[in-house]
C-alpha cells in the first residue's frame, strides 16, 4: 500500500516537464485585493479633498494594480512566458469590458427611460390631434418599415447584381472603377444622400417636395455600397471547384451563378443585407429633409410627408410642448422600439441564414 502511494509521488517530483503554477483562485484573489486597495485609495482621496467617492477611479486603480501584481507574481512562480500570457489576458479582458460598458449603459438607459410609455396605446395610436400626454407611434413605425422596405427593394437587386458583375464578369478598368466608387460611396455622409434625394425629387415634383420614396432613395444610396461589399465577399468565398463542376456538366454560366453560386453564398448574403438594413433604419438626417415629419398616418410612400421612428424621436426631443416629460418619454420609447426592430431583423436574418446554409455533416 505504501509502495503504491509513494511511487507516483516520486515520479512527479522527478518529472522534468512540471513547472510552477498559480492556483486557480490566485488571479481572483488578486482581483479582490486590488479592488479593495483601489476602493481604499479612492475613499481616502475623496475624504481628503471633500469630493464624492468615485467608483470609476477605484476600478481604474484596481485594474492597473492587478495587471502589475499578476505579472510580478506570475513571473516569480510560473516564469516569463506565463507572466506575459497573464498580462495580455488581463489587457484583452479589460479592453472587452471597456467596449461593453457604453453598450450596456446605452441599452439599459433606453430600456429604463423607454419603459414609461411602452404600452398598448403607444403601438396603436398616431399623434394626430394629440397635445401633451398619450399618443403613439404607429404612423412612425409604418413609415420606417415602408421607407426601409422600399430602400431594400431598390438597393438589394442593384447591390447583388453589382457584386455578381464584379466577382463573375468584371475584368480590368471598369470593375476597378466600380470597386473604387463603391468604396467612395461607403463614406458618403447621410445628410448628403438626403440632399441628393431632395434635389432629385425637386426636379420632378418642384421645390418643397416631401415623400417617403425620396427617403427610400436616400437610404438606398447608403445601403447599396454595404450590400455590394458584403455580397462580393460572400461570392468570393464560393470555391471555384463548384463553378467548374457545374460548367463541366454543361451548365451555362448564368445558370451556374443562379443555381450554384448564389445558393451556396445565400446565408452570407442574407446576413449582409440585414446588416445593411440595420445600418440605414436608424438614419435620421436624410429622412428629416426628404420624408419630413407629420402627426398623421400615411401609407402612401409616393405622396406626402411620412413620419419615421428616428425622426419622431428627434422631433419629440427638440420641440416638446408644455408637458415636456410626455414628449421625452415618447422619444425614449421610440428609440427603444427602433432598437427592438433592428434586433428582430437580426434574429430573422439568423434564422434565414441557418435555414439556407449549405447542409454540412451527416
Amino acid at each position, binding site marked *: 500500500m505504501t509502495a503504491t502511494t509513494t511511487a507516483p509521488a516520486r515520479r512527479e517530483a522527478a518529472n522534468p516537464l512540471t513547472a510552477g503554477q498559480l492556483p486557480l483562485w490566485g488571479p481572483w484573489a488578486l482581483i479582490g485585493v486590488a479592488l479593495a486597495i483601489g476602493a481604499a485609495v479612492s475613499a481616502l482621496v475623496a475624504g481628503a479633498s471633500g469630493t464624492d467617492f468615485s467608483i470609476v477611479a477605484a476600478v481604474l486603480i484596481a485594474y492597473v494594480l492587478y495587471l502589475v501584481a499578476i505579472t510580478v507574481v506570475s513571473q516569480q512562480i510560473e516564469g516569463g512566458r506565463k507572466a506575459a500570457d497573464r498580462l495580455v489576458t488581463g489587457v484583452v479582458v479589460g479592453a472587452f469590458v471597456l467596449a461593453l460598458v457604453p453598450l450596456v449603459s446605452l441599452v439599459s438607459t433606453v430600456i429604463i427611460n423607454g419603459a414609461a410609455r411602452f404600452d398598448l396605446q403607444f403601438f396603436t395610436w398616431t399623434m394626430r390631434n394629440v397635445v401633451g400626454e398619450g399618443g403613439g407611434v404607429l404612423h412612425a413605425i409604418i413609415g420606417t418599415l415602408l421607407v426601409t422596405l422600399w430602400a431594400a427593394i431598390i438597393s438589394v437587386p442593384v447591390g447583388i447584381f453589382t457584386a455578381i458583375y464584379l466577382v463573375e464578369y468584371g*475584368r480590368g478598368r471598369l470593375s476597378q472603377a466600380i470597386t473604387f466608387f463603391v468604396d467612395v460611396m461607403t463614406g458618403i455622409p447621410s445628410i448628403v444622400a438626403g440632399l441628393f434625394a431632395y434635389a432629385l425629387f425637386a426636379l420632378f415634383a418642384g421645390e418643397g417636395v416631401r415623400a417617403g420614396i425620396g427617403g427610400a432613395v436616400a437610404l438606398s444610396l447608403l445601403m447599396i455600397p454595404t450590400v455590394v461589399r458584403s455580397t462580393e465577399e460572400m461570392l468570393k468565398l464560393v*470555391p471555384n*471547384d*463548384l*463553378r*467548374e*463542376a*457545374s*460548367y*463541366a*456538366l*454543361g*451548365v*451555362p454560366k448564368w*445558370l*451556374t451563378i443562379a*443555381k*450554384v453560386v448564389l*445558393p*451556396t453564398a*445565400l446565408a452570407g448574403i442574407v446576413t449582409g443585407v440585414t446588416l445593411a438594413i440595420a445600418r440605414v433604419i436608424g438614419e435620421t438626417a436624410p429622412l428629416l429633409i426628404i420624408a419630413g415629419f407629420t402627426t398623421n398616418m400615411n401609407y402612401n410612400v409616393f405622396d406626402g410627408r411620412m413620419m419615421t421612428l428616428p425622426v419622431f424621436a428627434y422631433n419629440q426631443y427638440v420641440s416638446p410642448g408644455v408637458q415636456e416629460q410626455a414628449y421625452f418619454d415618447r422619444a425614449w420609447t421610440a428609440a427603444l422600439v427602433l432598437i427592438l426592430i433592428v434586433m428582430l431583423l437580426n434574429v430573422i436574418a439568423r434564422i434565414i441564414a441557418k435555414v439556407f446554409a*449549405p*447542409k*454540412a*455533416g*451527416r
Partner: protein
Amino acid sequence: MSKRIETNDLDVYYGDFKAVEGVTIDIEPRSVTAFIGPSGCGKSTVLRTLNRMHEVISGAWVDGEVLLDGANLYAPGVDPVNVRRQIGMVFQRPNPFPTMSIRENVLAGVLLNNRRMSRSDQDDLVERSLRGANLWNEVKDRLNLPGSGLSGGQQQRLCIARAIAVSPEVLLMDEPCSALDPISTLAIEDLIEELKQEYTIVIVTHNMQQASRVSDRTAFFNIAGTGKPGKLIEYDDTTTMFSTPKVQATEDYVSGRFG
C-alpha cells in the same frame, strides 16, 4: 455513345506563357487513355482543353484543333456549353454541391439546366447513375441527405455518378484518386474498367501503377525545364509503354529513375 478524340498540333497558352506545345494525339473510343508525367508538364492542362474547361481560367487560350468525331471543338461559333454537355469531367478533389442532397447532386446536370423530367424518370436516372458509379448500395437509404456527409471516396464516386448522369460521350478524369485511400482508389479503378464499355475515358494520374492497371493506351508528357512548354513525348499501348518504350525519357520515368 462514346466518340473519338483527336488533337492536331495543339498549343496551350496562359496569357503569353506557352504551357504545352505541339500535342498530336488520337484517343480511341471505348478505351481508357492515361496521361502520365511529372508535375507541371501540362497533362491536366491538355485534359482540360479537351472539353474547353481550361478557358474558365482567365487568360488561357488554345492554338490548334481538337476534333470530337471529326468536329473541331475550337471552330468559330462553337458553344463551350454544348461541348461540355458531351464531354464530362471528374476533378481531382471531390466537389459535390454543398447546397444539394445526394439525389439532387446526381440530378444536377438536369436540375441546373432547368430541364423538365418526370419524378419516375428522375428516380430511374438517379438509381442508374449511382449503380453505374458503384455507390447505390451505400447511399440508397439516404438519398435526401447532403452529399457533403459522405466520405471522400464516396463523394468522388458521387461526382462520377453526377458526370455520367448527363450521359456524355467522353469522360475526363483529372487525378480522380489522388485524394483517396487505397480502398476507395480500388473502387474507382474497378468503376473505370466498367465505364469503358460505354465511354471514352481519359485519365490523368501521377500513379504509374494505376496507369498500367486501368489504361489501354498511355501518353507520357514531359517538360524540358521550368518556364519551357510541356510536350507529348510518347504515346503508345500501355503494355509497350511500360515494357519497351521507344524514348529513353519514358523509360527513365516509368522505371522510376526520375520524376
